[in-house]
């Protein structure tokens, strides 16, 4: 089980190898990048299948809190698997597209993969910061690699916001470390309650601000539109399905383990209550995200803002903090990643076929490429959460948990339902345009065996999860109890066991 370090180390080692190979044989370095990601996917699936109880992997032979530890449980393994799967398909998609990229491009994708897995697995607050910075740097470079000014502008906007976020995060680390004397997440969880409550509230607000940037929560998401639009389509897909996923993971982990020792027990610091802040940020994000998506004529921007809306919904679920809502949030995150990656792949090909990302000029493409159009509809239904498609279960559970909760959380039901209607309208509007009578003869969409393999896999996943959610359901059901700190298989007790206490 300690082999889970290879989830982080293998792509890192491969990335270090690329400049060497890129000098000798560029093609080989690309192929090996893909194979590394594929091997990592296999490893993560293997770990997921053989998984029994949470465990802690120590680094450097030093027990936590002196050394850094990785924490592997169902939540981190599931997310690592999704990230690996998404990146593997993303690399395949990029390899099969007409635009030839330099070996460095694949190297940066591998570094992104490394850092996202590091974010997901680490149990140390500062280590999380280091991996967040690697993720940031590699994604800025990748966004700008589209060689278009829009991408460079998006990357710069992202850079400025993310740098502010990392300063806030470091300031929070300074406050937390000098008051509690530790950086280990499990230990901080106890230490935060011994802190002066105003100080603790300040630290928590600073951390929340930086995590909101990773997770694309309003008002920290002004960069989203231009970054997604200017990036190459494979990268936009990865930003939505892997980077935002890792951000949401960090949010889940930190808000349950660090801020509150377990479910439904999110800490109050004096009169300051995190739950309501998270909930209202989520509401505002859903409303603004879906409204911006609704008004977009640019397909990539539309998908980007739709991701923002989904992240807002997940933040609301995190804030409701019941066993059901956690289940719903994890389910929705995973299915959102799958469906969005599918949509971005299709949109990417449509953009390269028509030379524009304005979807009103895509009229009639679906008539000539009907399977592509059907796949688009499957992806759209998956994101929207129509019954029999993957997104349904997550959304359904979140709405159910909002029904059961009292107070302002009840409002979540209406917000999510309204957002679903808006999503359905703007996706079906686009899908309708695809099958409309064309004004001029639509161009040929460049497809190929690799593209069809990727999209078929994703579309099948959307449908199969929608119809038979049972296998995924069994895995996700374990998560709420593992997140809880008070039982023997919970996060905190696992780490404390590794500390020898």
């Amino acid at each position: 089980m300690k082999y889970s370090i290879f989830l982080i180390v293998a792509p890192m080692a491969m990335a270090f190898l690329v400049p060497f190979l890129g000098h000798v044989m560029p093609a080989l370095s690309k192929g090996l990048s893909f194979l590394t990601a594929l091997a990592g996917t296999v490893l993560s699936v293997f770990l997921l299948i053989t998984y029994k109880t949470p465990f802690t992997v120590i680094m450097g032979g030093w027990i936590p809190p002196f050394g850094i530890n990785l924490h592997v449980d169902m939540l981190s393994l599931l997310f690592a698997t999704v990230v690996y799967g998404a990146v593997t398909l993303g690399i395949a998609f990029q390899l099969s597209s007409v635009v030839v990229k330099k070996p460095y491009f694949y190297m940066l994708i591998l570094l992104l993969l490394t850092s996202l897995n590091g974010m997901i697995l680490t149990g140390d607050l500062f280590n999380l910061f280091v991996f967040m910075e690697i993720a940031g740097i590699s994604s800025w470079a990748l966004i700008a690699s589209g060689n278009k000014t829009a991408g460079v502008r998006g990357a710069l906007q992202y850079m400025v916001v993310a740098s502010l976020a990392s300063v806030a995060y470091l300031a929070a680390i300074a406050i937390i470390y000098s008051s509690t004397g530790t950086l280990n997440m499990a230990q901080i969880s106890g230490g935060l309650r011994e802190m002066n409550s105003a100080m603790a509230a300040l630290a928590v607000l600073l951390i929340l601000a930086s995590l909101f940037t990773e997770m694309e929560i309003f008002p920290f998401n002004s960069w989203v539109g231009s970054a997604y639009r200017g990036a190459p389509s494979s990268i936009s897909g990865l930003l939505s399905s892997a980077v935002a996923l890792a951000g949401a993971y960090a949010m889940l982990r930190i808000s349950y383990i660090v801020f509150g020792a377990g479910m439904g027990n999110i800490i109050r610091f004096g009169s300051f209550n995190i739950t309501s802040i998270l909930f209202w940020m989520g509401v505002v994000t859903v409303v603004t995200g879906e409204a911006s998506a609704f008004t977009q004529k640019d397909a990539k921007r539309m998908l980007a803002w739709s991701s923002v809306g989904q992240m807002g919904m997940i933040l609301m679920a995190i804030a409701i903090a019941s066993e059901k809502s956690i289940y719903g949030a994890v389910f929705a995150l995973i299915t959102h990643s799958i469906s969005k990656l599918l949509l971005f792949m299709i949109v990417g090909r449509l953009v390269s076929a028509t030379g524009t990302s304005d979807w009103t000029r895509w009229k009639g493409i679906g008539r000539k490429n009907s399977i592509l159009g059907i796949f688009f509809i499957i992806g759209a239904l998956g994101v929207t959460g129509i019954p029999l498609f993957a997104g349904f279960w997550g959304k359904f559970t979140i709405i159910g948990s909002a029904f059961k909760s009292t107070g302002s959380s009840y409002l979540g039901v209406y917000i999510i339902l309204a957002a679903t209607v808006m999503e359905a309208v703007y996706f079906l509007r686009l899908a309708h345009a695809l099958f409309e009578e064309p004004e001029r003869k639509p161009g040929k969409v460049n497809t190929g065996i690799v593209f069809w393999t990727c999209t078929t896999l994703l579309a099948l996943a959307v449908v199969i999860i929608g119809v038979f959610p049972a296998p995924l359901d069994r895995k996700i059901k374990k998560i709420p109890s593992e997140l809880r700190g008070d039982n023997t298989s919970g996060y905190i007790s696992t780490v404390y066991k590794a500390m020898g206490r």
Partner: protein
Amino acid sequence: MNKIAAILMIGIISYGVYAAFSSTQPGSKPFKRKAQNDVSRAYLAKTVNGKKHSSIMRGMKGLENSSSNIVTAVVLDYRGFDTLGEVTVLFAAIAGIGLLLGGQKKRVITPAGPIISSLAPWIALFILITSAYVFLHGHLTPGGGFPGGAMIAAGFLLMVLGFRTKPSGVFRMLESFAGLSFVLVGLLGFLKKGSFLQNFMGTGEMGSLFGSLFITVLYAIIGIKVAAELSSGFGSFVKEDLEEEHE
């Protein structure tokens, strides 16, 4: 954003920080240190693995690590994984620069004036020796691989300015090689001792130059890597710079 809004925002933040720091509720706070905490006390007294010493002397053997500079011990031994991440950050940044700025027109480099070009090699040699000293003594004195490597890169920048030296692909190779060796050292620890980046070379005499081989090896790798990285990355800024001057 206009200036008044900015000042208003800064005022709000400052007030919030002031309110938090002046809060009189009970509990621990930064800047008001309680007795030194467990973690750093264990680092200083080298008692992380539970073995207690009444005092530590120069020349002592069998300590959990024999670095007298505790910051170095933390950076490379106790929290070595962070440092691997840090090295990767630089690597990613330089790769990004290569992706964005590399592969452009042919470069012409103009030589600098006579004073710089005659002095450059001597200064560069001096910098090289100093930086080697800095990263070999990382476990004894302040300094280490990062400043040492950065100094070599500065020396190299001087060479670029002084001569017609062109930064070549050699640096990328060296960087690649150094990064791989870092991971390899980590994996050897994993294979021999069971934990990634664990010290598998043993510890020697505290306070001697080659007493902590593990740290010296890692700092040498980091020094080479940082030097190669910064030289190649900054080379790609400089090259274009000189070329534009020429045109």
